[in-house]
């Protein structure tokens, strides 16, 4: 997604001459061409994320749309107060782009993981979080983020292409509505690909609706998801993020507020470091039950 993101910015640089790109000293072997394209509108603010966000808010107050780039944990946790007070309180077009959502940076360790980024940011006033799952819905997220001109955060990971049996929607992506469905799977970010792999060749696949949700907070439960839940009464939420303040709690709230009948609700989510050990992204996904094998097991438990 990072490469795709940098190409996207290069492509819109001429159309949007009010875009300024600020990096927290990250982007080696990725942002060189963006820097060349933007010239003086590309700023390396150094290893100083709090200042980077404050500077971005100052730039935005003067009419610029400002992209702030770093790896996700550095640009979320370190400068939370700057994001809240300087950007969100003033509803400024500062677009925070964090690479490496979830356990993306794997064995680099917990400092480099972002398991609570959406929970941390999505409740801030005026903030819009984007959590694309595929390259294609990342494009729609970027279009929306750039054009909207309001505070935003985008979580990047390693995205694959949208599978042939899913289509883009206003909230992300979805399989074709199925009146015989018996399970509603709602997922966020590229970890959805583990679920899609689990479903491949699965005899229950025709009875499962799959949704990718790429915008948080979940202000409204999308009608297609609501309709699916009404049909299936069974929900499985999958996210490489903690459940609290993430997709699972958002779906749970939405379902309860609508007094929807649910037989079974399962949340598969990032669990931190339950065994105190570290490894690559796939390792952490497995420890938390976000791997293909466990997802398959959970899906089959519904049938």
């Amino acid at each position, binding site marked *: 997604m990072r490469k795709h993101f940098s190409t996207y910015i290069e492509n819109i640089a001429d159309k949007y001459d009010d875009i*300024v790109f600020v990096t927290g000293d990250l982007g080696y072997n990725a942002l060189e061409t963006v820097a060349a394209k933007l010239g*003086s*509108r590309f*700023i390396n*603010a*150094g290893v*100083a994320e*709090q*200042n*980077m*966000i*404050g*500077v*971005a*808010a*100052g*730039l*935005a*107050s*003067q*009419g*610029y749309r400002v992209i702030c780039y770093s790896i996700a944990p550095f640009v979320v946790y370190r400068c939370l*107060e*700057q994001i809240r*007070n*300087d950007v969100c*309180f*003033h*509803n400024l077009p500062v677009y925070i782009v964090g690479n490496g959502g979830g356990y993306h940076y794997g064995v680099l360790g917990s400092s480099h993981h972002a398991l609570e980024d959406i929970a941390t940011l999505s409740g801030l006033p005026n903030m819009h979080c984007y959590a694309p799952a595929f390259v294609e819905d990342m494009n729609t997220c970027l279009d929306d983020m750039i054009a909207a001109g309001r505070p935003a955060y985008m979580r990047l990971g390693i995205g694959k292409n949208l599978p042939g049996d899913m289509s883009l929607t206003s909230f992300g992506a979805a399989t074709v509505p199925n009146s015989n469905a018996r399970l509603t799977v709602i997922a966020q970010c590229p970890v959805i690909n583990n679920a899609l792999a689990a479903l491949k060749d699965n005899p229950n696949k025709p009875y499962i609706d799959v949704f990718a949700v790429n915008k948080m907070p979940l202000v409204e439960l999308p009608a297609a998801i609501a309709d699916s839940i009404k049909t299936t009464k069974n929900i499985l939420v999958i996210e490489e993020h903690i459940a609290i303040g993430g997709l699972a709690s958002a779906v749970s709230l939405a379902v309860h507020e609508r007094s929807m009948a649910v037989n079974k609700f399962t949340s598969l989510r990032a669990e931190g470091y339950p065994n105190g050990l570290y490894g690559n992204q796939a390792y952490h996904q497995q420890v938390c039950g976000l791997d293909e094998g466990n997802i398959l097991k959970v899906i089959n438990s519904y049938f």
Partner: protein
Amino acid sequence: MEHSQLQGKLRKKILDINYPVGGGHLGCALSCIDIMISIVLHKAAGDTFILSKGHAGSAMYALLNETGEITDEVLKTFYKNATTLSAHPAALKYPSIPFATGSLGHGLPLAAGIAKANKLKANTATSYVLMSDGETNEGTSWEGAHFAVANKLDNLFVIIDKNGLQGFGNLTDVLGDTASAKVWEAMGFDVVEADGHDIPNILALKNELLNRKNGKPKLFIANTVKGKGIAYMENKLEWHYLSMNEAQYNEALKSIETTYGI
């Protein structure tokens, strides 16, 4: 109006709005009101001013009441329920308050961002920011300072209200003199240190500094007295927080009359 009369008038206004509601941070507002008169009332069109020491909000409100941006009626709502005038300035309420402040260490990066925007646009406006001396404890002061130097923001004008007293001790005792001219000069700022209550001198120094187009961000270290103008408050740490009782309010008014002749 003579400077001394305005200095007295605005001090009285600060006391008048704080006394009925039990407002505090009086010493902080009184130490920087003369700087604010010098900057806010004398800035050019397009210039911006950020009160980074948001706890001196009542000084900003008194000043904006003087300019007419805040009416007498609104000023009376200060610190009360359903007001636009919270003790620390709120967001998006008044054109002359571009950013909500109150948590220290935000103003310098914001002002640096504005200065950078002015550079990108080849706009000659000046970006002013007023910080407290205690605020220079914040790491963002150092991040922002280095950013300003690296980006050659000589259109950034920083003022440090150096009254020597921070929240719970003397500036020099808590973390050492983080508002030291030597330190800021060493980082690459163009620094002038002078009396922060002498308005004609501040105006002259301001112009002198801004005329030095040397690629260096500007810093005016304003040596001030916390509680300036109210004899019993001067240089007293407790007036960072306390509110006045009736006797103290009356004594403060007399003190202003004596000092400023109003």
